[in-house]
């Protein structure tokens, strides 16, 4: 095997010099290419503006684990009120245990949930003490899984009403209105 002079070998067999120069990328073009940042900055600014407009400073209303909320179209905005959630057979008020609904499910009749009643009543008394002279809003929000039976919802609803919260709201996931 003969010894060759050191140098470029790749695409050396392309016969025409001007074609070889073209395909091997040779020529007078500079190695440094400047990148236009204007469109990228425009895109970033538009994204920031969109996200700022849709940003909610109040945060998300906590949904208990295991609760699959139903969806509805004709809804109202959420309000600040005690949240009574029913997860399985466990009743909770603002995340704290407040009895269970097993007895209601077994008996299949309307019953008061005593622990829930006492907690709601004490919350009401506390509100009245901390807001003297103001009208009590008497609102409670029910956070219930969509498969829970009506008898359980009725029992919790009635317990809340008897504890001084007759204005009951049902928490749902809001969906856009459809045209029928």
């Amino acid at each position, binding site marked *: 095997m003969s010894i060759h002079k050191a140098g470029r070998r790749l695409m050396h067999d392309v016969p025409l010099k001007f074609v070889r120069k073209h395909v091997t990328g040779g020529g007078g073009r500079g190695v440094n290419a400047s990148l236009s940042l204007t469109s990228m900055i425009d895109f*970033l600014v538009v994204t920031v503006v969109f996200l700022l407009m849709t940003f909610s400073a109040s945060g998300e209303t906590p949904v208990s684990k295991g609760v699959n909320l139903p969806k509805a179209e004709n809804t109202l905005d959420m309000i600040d009120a005690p949240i009574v959630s029913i997860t399985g057979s466990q009743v909770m008020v603002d995340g704290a245990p407040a009895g269970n609904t097993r007895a209601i499910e077994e008996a299949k009749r309307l019953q008061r949930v005593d622990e829930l009643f006492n907690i709601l009543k004490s919350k009401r008394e506390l509100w009245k003490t901390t807001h003297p002279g103001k009208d009590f809003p008497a609102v409670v929000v029910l956070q219930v899984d969509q498969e829970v039976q009506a008898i359980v919802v009725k029992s919790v609803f009635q317990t809340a009403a008897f504890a001084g919260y007759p204005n009951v709201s049902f928490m749902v996931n*809001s969906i856009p209105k459809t045209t029928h």
Partner: protein
Amino acid sequence: MGGVSVDSGGKGGRRALDSEINMIPMIDLLMVTISFLLITAVWSHMARLNADAQVPGPPQPTELTNVPPEKQLHIEMRGADKFVLIWKQSGTVISTVDVPRKDVVTVEGTTRVVRFPDLAAKVASEWNTVATHKSESDTKFDQAILHTDNETPYGAIIGVIDAVYQVHRPYKKGSKVESMPAFNMTFAVN
């Protein structure tokens, strides 16, 4: 790279007039802002459907004594095949209408959404013919009361309440005419 050239257009000086604004900190800031906003974004929108228990409140000093009882729409959801719409006034039945139950079920994500468009249409036509509070200057609601059996799933109850709240009517707020739900919903425990 990463700079914007600003040609000041000067002539004859010793220092170069073509300076660059460093864009990298600005891009970094935008990226961090976007990351923060994306992480803290709330994509599911919680909302509520209002209902009340019709419990009498404390006596008001200016309470009216001779107020005629209002008409109320009772929605019976006890059968698997039909709804019954009953207009009552102080216990007297004014009219009764049967509405065939047609559940329109769609699955959105993991949630089964039940809608009752036929019921919504019938409630709207009933409100047009029987309801009391129709005037644009009247801001009171007509009352609808939902009765269900004990086994009905909560998702279906929400479907019915949503159908009733679909009926809207105009009302005057100052010089503007706005839209409000025609009914206020009560969930009966019997």
